[in-house]
């Protein structure tokens, strides 16, 4: 009656062949990716040197490296990176915690959820960037306003995403715990939350991206410090080297942060207690 445990049998020749091809393909993909990156920077550099493109407008890898080291010498590099990352992390955490909290509230009370529905729809479709000047006037031009901007952009999406997950919890499983006399809190902790770690993580992934958007927009508007400020400043003084350098740092930082979330996801997936086994 039991399903047999999966055992690793000795590899057949076909299987070994298949695995070998799989490995080759994996290496090929990785190599191609690296080649594209190297080629891109090489063409960029060479085209600049040969004056096929104007490095004044397009910058150049060598100039970017010089700009980086200048920034580093002036001691500004890590200040700007640090401020932007801090704001993003703060916006991200706030968005996730508040968003999940509000989603729990809306799941809890169908009445509140119904009442707020049209407001959420309007807020969701409103381009939140339009609120930027208001935040700056209310909160003052500083990191707080930038964090609020990031929050404004990610909050509604988080609420809707997580709430959707909560509402899709299997009603029969909910019924099951109710047959044992479960109250609403127990329904939530025993069924709804554990079967929805997946949608919470999805919301996190979306949130990372949105927090970056919010922070950069905020820095554009506030223009005091941070990578967003460097980009705007560089544009204003026509220093494309500074702009490109900041964009590349930004890309690296955003990618790192996204990988961080993926890492958390993997950790949780390894522990089926926390993560619904799909």
């Amino acid at each position: 009656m039991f399903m047999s445990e999966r055992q690793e049998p000795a590899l057949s020749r076909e299987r070994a062949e298949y695995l070998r091809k799989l490995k080759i393909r994996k290496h090929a993909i990785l190599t191609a990716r690296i080649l594209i990156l190297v080629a891109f920077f090489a063409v960029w550099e060479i085209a600049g040197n040969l004056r096929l493109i104007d490095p004044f407008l397009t910058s150049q890898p060598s100039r970017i490296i010089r700009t980086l080291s200048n920034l580093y010498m002036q001691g500004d590099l890590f200040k700007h990176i640090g401020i932007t990352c801090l704001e993003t992390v703060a916006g991200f955490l706030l968005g996730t915690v508040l968003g999940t909290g509000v989603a729990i509230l809306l799941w809890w009370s169908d009445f509140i959820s119904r009442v707020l529905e049209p407001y959420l729809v309007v807020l969701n479709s409103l381009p939140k960037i339009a609120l930027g000047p208001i935040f700056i006037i209310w909160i003052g031009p500083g990191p707080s306003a930038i964090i609020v901007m990031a929050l404004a952009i990610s909050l509604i999406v988080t609420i809707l995403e997580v709430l959707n997950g909560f509402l899709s919890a299997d009603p029969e499983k909910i019924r099951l715990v109710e047959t044992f006399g479960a109250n609403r809190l127990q329904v939530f902790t025993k069924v709804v939350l554990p079967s929805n770690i997946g949608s919470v993580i999805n919301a996190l992934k979306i949130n990372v991206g949105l927090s970056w958007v919010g922070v950069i927009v905020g820095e554009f508007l506030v223009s005091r410090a941070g990578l967003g400020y460097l980009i705007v400043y560089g544009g204003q003084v026509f220093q494309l080297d500074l702009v490109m350098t900041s964009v590349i740092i930004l890309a690296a930082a955003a990618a790192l942060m996204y990988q961080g979330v993926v890492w958390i996801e993997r950790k949780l997936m390894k522990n089926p207690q926390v993560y619904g086994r799909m």
Partner: protein
Amino acid sequence: MAEELVDVRNLGMKYQSPNGEIEAVRDVSFTVSKGEFVSLVGPSGCGKSTILSIISGLLKPTSGSVRIGGEWVRGASRKVGYMLQKDHLFDWRTIYQNVLLGLEVRGALNKESKERVMGLLNTYGLYEFRDKYPDQLSGGMRQRAALIRTLAVDPEILLLDEAFSALDYQMRIAVTDDIYGIIKREQKTVIMVTHDISESISMSDRVIVISKRPATVIAIHDIKFNLKERSPLACRETREFPGYFNMIWRELDVHV
């Protein structure tokens, strides 16, 4: 006859929705004695699950009442264990954590109750599988685990709502026999609903035939087999079986 453990009297249920009213149950009365296995058989959608939900206290009837052991049922009754159509084992919990669910929810998790659960797992061949996840078990084993989850809270009465219908036919026959054996051994009183006439006859001491919606009682039959040791599979092979089947079939008046 032994005392009446469950007394269902003049039950009526009308569901309300913006689109109108659905009368699911009308004036249903019956009693179940301690240790009895009673099944309600009726066509799909006739209101069987509604009747069970009311008995369990999950649903409030619009009229009539249910008493269990003399007490009125109000809110989810602790005397009742409910088995749903599917096993609904949580795939993020191990088998052991799954069978503890009811005790956890009722706040009855302690050394004794855990030991009792271990005993049940042991008796019914799931002990070695206690740390496995549900997707590592066969359909039959999962059904057993679901039953043990229900038995863990030590209910007096088991309510089975088409508890085997999610399984394919051969599995279903085998699992029915298996679960029946466990229920008898644990000496539980059972109320089962099904639309499967054979299943109801093969398991029950009494079959209550229910009409299509709104559910009313058409007839109540005592089921007796000339068997030394009763099991659902053995019942299906008796000479009395077809007689019961045809009678209930005619009463249900099935039209294609």
